[in-house]
């Protein structure tokens, strides 16, 4: 079952083409990692998958519905992004985690929020002001805020960049327990992609060089640029 189907998709900022994908399918429930150097179009792709922007050209189907300005709000709300820098509201941790549910008008009890906080190891932080958290704690709150919405797709944009190994481990463990949620992970860290993803894709200059099952991507890539990237050689 395909969740996202992208065809002949181009995205431009002015005259500059930042994304040029002939085809990309993302299945329900898989973890797909997108790797590539800075400026390769990874974050732009996530913004399109989150419907924050509409492709300049081509089609993006989400669960069979064409993603454009007419995409229903309910469909948009089934996707949530956690960005590299956790942007938390200046409220308590509890209120931050409950925020998405409030937007949706979903009734919830304290136990729902506490369970989400429990998943990220922050059950005791419910009443703490979010602005006082460390970077790792804030990112875990951002993750809890996304998970409590039980999204059909979770988009992660460098979720562990600048975090210490302890927090990286915790967050990766949470991602592994994604259940039926589709996860699209953008990362610079090829080791993390290897640890977590079912499939891994390499983006270079806005083009998807190849997208393979993780084993094949790392052990038998088809494109020499993939091999160069994995080996840490400059290919861009």
């Amino acid at each position: 079952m395909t969740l996202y189907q992208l065809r002949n998709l181009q995205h431009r900022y002015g005259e500059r083409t930042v994304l040029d994908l002939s085809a990309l399918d993302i299945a329900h429930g898989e973890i797909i990692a997108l790797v590539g150097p800075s400026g390769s179009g990874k974050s732009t792709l996530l913004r399109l998958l989150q419907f924050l922007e509409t492709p300049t050209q081509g089609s993006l189907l989400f669960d069979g519905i064409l993603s454009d300005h007419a995409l229903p709000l309910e469909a948009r709300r089934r996707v949530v992004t956690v960005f590299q820098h956790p942007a938390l509201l200046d409220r308590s941790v509890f209120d931050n985690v409950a925020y998405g549910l409030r937007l949706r008008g979903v009734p919830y009890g304290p136990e729902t929020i506490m369970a989400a906080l429990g998943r990220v190891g922050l059950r005791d932080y419910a009443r703490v002001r979010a602005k006082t958290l460390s970077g790792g704690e804030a990112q875990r709150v951002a993750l809890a805020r996304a998970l409590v919405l039980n999204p059909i797709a979770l988009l992660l944009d460098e979720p562990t960049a600048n975090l210490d190994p302890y927090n990286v481990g915790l967050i990766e463990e949470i991602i592994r327990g994604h259940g039926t949620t589709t996860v699209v992970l953008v990362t610079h860290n090829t080791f993390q992609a290897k640890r977590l993803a079912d499939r891994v894709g390499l983006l270079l200059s806005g083009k998807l060089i190849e997208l393979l099952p993780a084993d094949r991507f790392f052990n038998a890539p088809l494109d020499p640029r993939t091999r160069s990237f994995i080996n840490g050689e400059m290919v861009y």
Partner: protein
Amino acid sequence: MEDLLRALTSSDLAEIVALTLRVTGIALIISTIIGAPLGALIGLSKFRGKSFVRALLYTGMGLPPVVVGLFVYLILSRSGPLGSLSWLFTPSAMIVAQIVIALPLTTGLTMTSVESVSPELKRQIAALGATRSQAAWTILREARIGVTAAIVAAFGGIISEVGAVMLVGGNIAGQTRVLTTAIVLNTRQGDFSLALALGLILLILTFIVNTALMKLQGR
């Protein structure tokens, strides 16, 4: 001290303080009700001519109260476009003048405080599924310190101004006399002690209101 006691026990004082608070309070409430949402709307929107609107607002923030008073006087005078209202030399005219002074402050400072909310947070709010109005409300709430500062600045601007209320109110005893115009009158009459005592009362009132606003701000 004696003059302060004389001022405090004056029968007119309660009336002057009540009118000061009524005029300034109504003007502040109206300019906040209009200015905060308008400032948020301008701050969150991208449109042609936004720089011009910004320049107008910044100019409005620096409007000399006496000039505002002159324009409001001309508009409300018998031969002016709104002369039929017969508001000149009434508290209504003073409220209008103070709204004109306060509105650019509440609008402009709310606009800048909304604009200063981080783009990352705005993007995250959208990515969590907020509608445009939900996003606007959340951002306004995030910018509450700046919005409160806007209200405080507007309050400070209008409670302390004298030129506009003197021109359009006329400083009529028992009708349009407020603390600032009473201070001017007592100074002119050489009653400096009473003028100083009234000034002290004005400062105390401003302090109390600002403290209350800071409580609202959550600080």
